[in-house]
């Protein structure tokens, strides 16, 4: 291990291209430019230029809410329609749902590992920050690799075929296979390969056949039947903690897609949820989001 990656440079590099305009004072997150939820979280935290070990999620959240208030005041003054506020709020909620994802990991049944003390040790916030720290380190390493890859791309190795007089020295090939064996080999290589089992880390979320899509449907049905409901009412029929967690995630997703609205009449009062009438919520799309490539885009 000869060198240590430059902390400064790496911090800069974690700012994705799409976030450049943030110097103008925004908290905007161009999600499509990010490389998954960890990227977004990391960006949120590095944006505040704090040591992420010392940052509590609550502080990031508080700052975000303060920023939103400011933005709201500005847009009111400018007479704009507040769409920007909504956009940024929903984007932040996606991030928040990732945090909840991590918290959820703690709440779920874990078989024989379900030891109370273990859970206390795995306090969700610490876990998240440790993971982010790790992610950040790998981002720095990736930057180093990217630089090397770029520099080395300017050099080409000499890898030419052997000059004929030396090729002639090679031992005569012993051809151990016939045409049939060759055909079998070609068939095997050309046969469509089964897609490898997806190994997405959030698989535990619906390990017990609880899916966000199904719970979203359940929520929709409840709200259609009974109008505005509090969260406690929405989860009253849940027979497992897992259902409560997944239903909550479903709510966040539905809010992101503007299928529902939240209202809170008093500070710390019950959160009231109602359907947005003209919405067209696509539960299946949510499921795809969670099970699919998770935003991974490979441009090659």
């Amino acid at each position, binding site marked *: 291990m000869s060198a240590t990656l430059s902390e400064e440079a790496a911090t800069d590099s974690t700012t994705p291209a799409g976030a450049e305009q943030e110097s103008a004072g925004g908290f905007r997150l161009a999600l499509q430019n990010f490389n998954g939820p960890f990227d977004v979280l990391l960006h949120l935290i590095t944006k505040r230029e704090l040591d992420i070990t010392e940052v509590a999620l609550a502080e990031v959240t508080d700052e975000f809410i303060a920023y939103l208030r400011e933005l709201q005041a500005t847009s009111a003054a400018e007479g704009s329609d507040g769409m920007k506020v909504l956009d940024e709020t929903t984007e932040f909620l996606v991030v928040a749902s990732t945090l909840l994802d991590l918290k959820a990991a703690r709440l779920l049944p874990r078989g024989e590992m379900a030891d109370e003390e273990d859970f206390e040790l795995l306090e969700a916030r610490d876990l998240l920050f440790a993971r982010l720290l790790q992610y950040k380190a790998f981002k720095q390493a990736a930057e180093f690799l990217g630089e090397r890859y770029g520099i080395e791309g300017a050099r080409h190795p000499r890898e030419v075929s052997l000059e004929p007089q030396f090729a002639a020295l090679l031992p005569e*090939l012993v051809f151990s296979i016939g045409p049939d064996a*060759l055909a079998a080999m070609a068939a095997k290589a050309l046969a469509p390969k089964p897609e490898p089992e997806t190994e997405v880390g959030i698989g535990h979320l619906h390990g017990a056949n609880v899916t966000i899509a199904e719970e979203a449907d359940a929520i929709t049905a409840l709200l259609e039947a009974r109008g505005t409901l509090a969260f406690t009412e929405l989860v009253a029929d849940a027979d497992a903690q897992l259902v409560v967690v997944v239903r909550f995630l479903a709510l966040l997703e539905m809010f992101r897609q503007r299928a529902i609205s939240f209202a809170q009449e008093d500070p710390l009062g019950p959160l009231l949820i109602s359907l947005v009438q003209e919405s067209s919520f696509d539960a299946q799309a949510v499921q795809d989001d969670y099970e699919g490539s998770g935003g991974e885009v490979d441009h090659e």
Partner: protein
Amino acid sequence: MRRPCKTTTRGVVVRWIMSEIAPIDQLPGGLESGLEAVLMVADIPVSSARLAEIFEVPTARVAAALETLATEYDSKDRPRGFELRRVASGWRFYSRADYADFVSSYVLDGQTARLSQAALETLAVIAYRQPVSRGRISAIRGVNVDSVVRTLLTRGLITEYPEVGDGGATLYQTTEYFLERLGLGSLDELPALSPYLPGVADLESLDSATYDD
């Protein structure tokens, strides 16, 4: 070497005629080092006309520079281990014959008379999908095949296809020698793939060259 570059039309013409301030002349080492760089990675002889295009200088200047390099490498004081030779189609770096014993012992060291499994599989793919690019073979096999393709070329089992593929990719095809070694009269005698693919419904599409990568 560098001269002030005139910006008039006549100046540009002069630049090309004089060929004194081509881009390569801005670099340390100039044309000679540039030629060394290209020829060092060239697998087949490169004509001075082609080199002249690459460096935007007259062919005569390239030819002169190549002669200078070749002479320098042959120097009596310290002949290089490589030589720059002109063969029918152009110029290429070769190892110097004086050191052939050592080169031979390097080449023969660890050589076997058998093709590796990776080489055989690659050969099978080329046989049934020719002409085919290295990129396509890599996609089909899911691994990098650069080195095995080189082995197959060296062994004379495959050769470059006369035309290039999409994006200028080199395509490969099997050789007469390949047919001989397999005891086949022609490529038509290659067995159909279908019997080797039980359970694949659409055999026709597999046999015809429609693999999507």
